[in-house]
């Protein structure tokens, strides 16, 4: 049965709005085609989660009009950035980028860091071949809607052999439920380039429902090294559906660092396609759930390349009535000899009403590989609490130590100190401490 879907915009409106705002014809066509698909496609299927019961109707209305860039940072984002002359920052507020800064030094090296709508117009040759190339509109209704309605967004291009030492940062702020909030991040890292990208998804003050339907695509060419760190802390009335995918060339690598700190229902997928020989993917996810949140987080690695390696670690803490489905999927295709895939998912539950489910899945079509998985779900160990308390530590502090200890293997491995501290602070806030 296909549930009735109310599209936030009809194809004619989308076409005229897109072309009216100066988007190139190929982009307008791609949007309209995707929108038509959306009407016929089903919602994505999530393991053990009935996503059709989620609040996925409130997309807001679509507009392609972009306000002029601001001189000043929006107030709500100021605490997330340490803006300096050499900072590289994009800020999206609701449907459009409102602040942009790229250091002269990087611009000189040929690095492009701009909103995706502008990039589609100015750098067609670099955007068109990659946009929606690994997250395709025809997958399901939400991917089609995203392809039709994405707005603002980030395009990061690092030319061949360019190594960028300072992280490039973007912030996606939603503080109104009136317009579609669907940023798309596209990163193209040229051969043997190196770059670190960090973003935050934050909510301003609103109490109406809205869906964040977001996507990130990373193309790492041969020998490129990409670090991609993302922290989501959207509020309780925001439903977050985010797909992140990377495509790796020979000897390319990606490191995902994901903090799932939302307060509303959330689903995400973090997938690496290890196409190239000797490619390497490392995914670290920490998640905290509270209230009556329903969460479904998937990490996935698909190996095609010989001697490709993937590691995935997810640690989730669930309190109150939150429930989490944590999936880890390692797929090794025939021919990916000497591939190695390792994954661990662990869920710690802080209350008897919290629920957690860890699903490690290995799908292996090649004999000459190594793969492993570990998963666990459990309550806080009362013996441990007793032991800590017997040294004079309060119950609250004891739980805190155990929770941080549980998350430590992921948090302490985060290579960016500022991000580590920020995550620590968010975890603290989410745990109500």
């Amino acid at each position, binding site marked *: 049965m296909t549930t009735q879907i109310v599209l936030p915009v009809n194809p004619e409106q989308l076409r005229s709005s897109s072309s009216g705002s100066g988007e190139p014809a190929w982009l307008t066509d791609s949007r309209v085609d995707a929108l038509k698909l959306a009407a016929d496609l089903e919602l994505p299927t999530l393991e053990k989660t009935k996503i059709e019961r989620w609040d996925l109707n409130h997309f807001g209305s679509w507009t392609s009009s972009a306000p002029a860039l601001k001189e000043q940072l929006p107030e709500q984002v100021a605490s997330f950035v340490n803006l300096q002359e050499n900072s590289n920052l994009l800020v999206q507020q609701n449907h459009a980028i409102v602040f942009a800064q790229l250091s002269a030094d990087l611009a000189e090296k040929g690095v492009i860091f701009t909103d995706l709508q502008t990039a589609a117009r100015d750098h067609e040759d670099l955007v068109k071949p990659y946009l929606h190339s690994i997250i395709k509109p025809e997958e399901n209704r939400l991917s089609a809607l995203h392809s039709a309605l994405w707005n603002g967004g980030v395009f990061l291009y690092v030319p061949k052999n360019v190594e960028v030492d300072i992280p490039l940062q973007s912030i996606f702020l939603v503080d109104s439920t009136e317009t579609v909030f669907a940023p798309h991040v596209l990163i193209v890292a040229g051969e043997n380039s190196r770059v670190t990208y960090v973003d935050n998804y934050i909510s301003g003050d609103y109490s109406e429902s809205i869906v964040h339907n977001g996507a990130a695509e990373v193309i790492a060419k041969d020998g490129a090294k990409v670090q991609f760190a993302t922290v989501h802390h959207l509020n309780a009335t925001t439903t977050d559906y985010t797909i992140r995918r990377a495509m790796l060339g020979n000897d390319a690598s990606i490191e995902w660092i994901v903090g799932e700190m939302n307060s509303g229902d959330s689903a995400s997928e973090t997938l690496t396609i290890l196409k190239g020989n000797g490619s390497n993917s490392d995914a670290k996810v920490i998640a905290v759930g509270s209230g009556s949140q329903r969460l479904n987080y998937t990490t996935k690695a698909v190996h095609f390349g010989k001697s490709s390696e993937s590691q995935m670690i997810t640690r989730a803490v669930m309190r109150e009535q939150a429930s989490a489905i944590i999936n880890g999927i390692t797929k090794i295709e025939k021919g990916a000899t000497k591939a190695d895939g390792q994954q661990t998912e662990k869920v710690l539950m802080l209350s008897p009403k919290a629920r957690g489910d860890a699903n490690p899945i290995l799908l292996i079509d090649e004999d000459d590989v190594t793969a492993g998985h570990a998963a666990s779900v459990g309550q806080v160990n009362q013996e441990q609490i007793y032991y800590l308390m017997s040294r004079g530590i309060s119950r609250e502090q004891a739980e805190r130590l155990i929770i941080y200890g549980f998350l430590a*293997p992921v948090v302490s491995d985060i290579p960016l100190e500022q991000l580590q501290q920020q995550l620590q602070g968010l975890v603290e806030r989410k745990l109500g401490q």
Partner: protein
Amino acid sequence: MATSFVVEGLKAEIEGKEILKGIDLEIKGGEIHAIMGPNGTGKSTLASALMGHPKYEVTDGKVTIDGEDVLEMGVDERALAGLFLAMQYPSEIAGVTNSDFLRSAINARRGEGNEISLIKFIRQMETKMKELEINPEFAHRYLNEGFSGGEKKRNEILQMMMLDPKIVILDEIDSGLDIDALRIVANGVNAMRSEERGFLIITHYQRLLNYITPDYVHVMMQGRIVKSGGPELAERLERDGYDWVKEELGIVDETVGQEA
């Protein structure tokens, strides 16, 4: 005021089974008491019940430390009141380093706004670790994780030294220790002997008492203290075992709360 720890008529059960059937004990600052007895006679239950382990329910009796009612206190409050239990099976806690844990425990005593400075803490910890011949890198290892039996016991003694308690209960601290580790642990305990501090050493071997001379020795059977004496009692138990005590008291099965 000299420390005074008083246990009167303490009864406790686990899962509805009564294990402690009325324990009376008084420990003053400066004294070392040893509780000896075969396995299964309630010795470790006594230690756990005194510390407030959630599995043990105290059904009767009274415990005070310097006049304060211990049984009314939570586990953490008992520790803050000066009680310390070196556990037979210390928990392993991944992700929490030994030094973070110890610093939290010290700061819990000192209170907010009066936290120990990092430098001072590290200096203290390093000094004590050296005394106990603990590898300095253990400060940064996760709490008890992957420690050998002997390392865990030494780590318990390290905590005791850092926390400076009034009443120390050592539950089978000698089990699983080789002779060198036993000597180190005993030296640690002896270094902590003072007029302000009382000790309760629970063991079923006399060998630890070769290194730490007790003032009083109590024999526990069937959930009660059935015989008390001086150090000479421990020596006789070492020489003759427990059978003569059982005979003297007409006890056939000395254990408590165990299925036949």
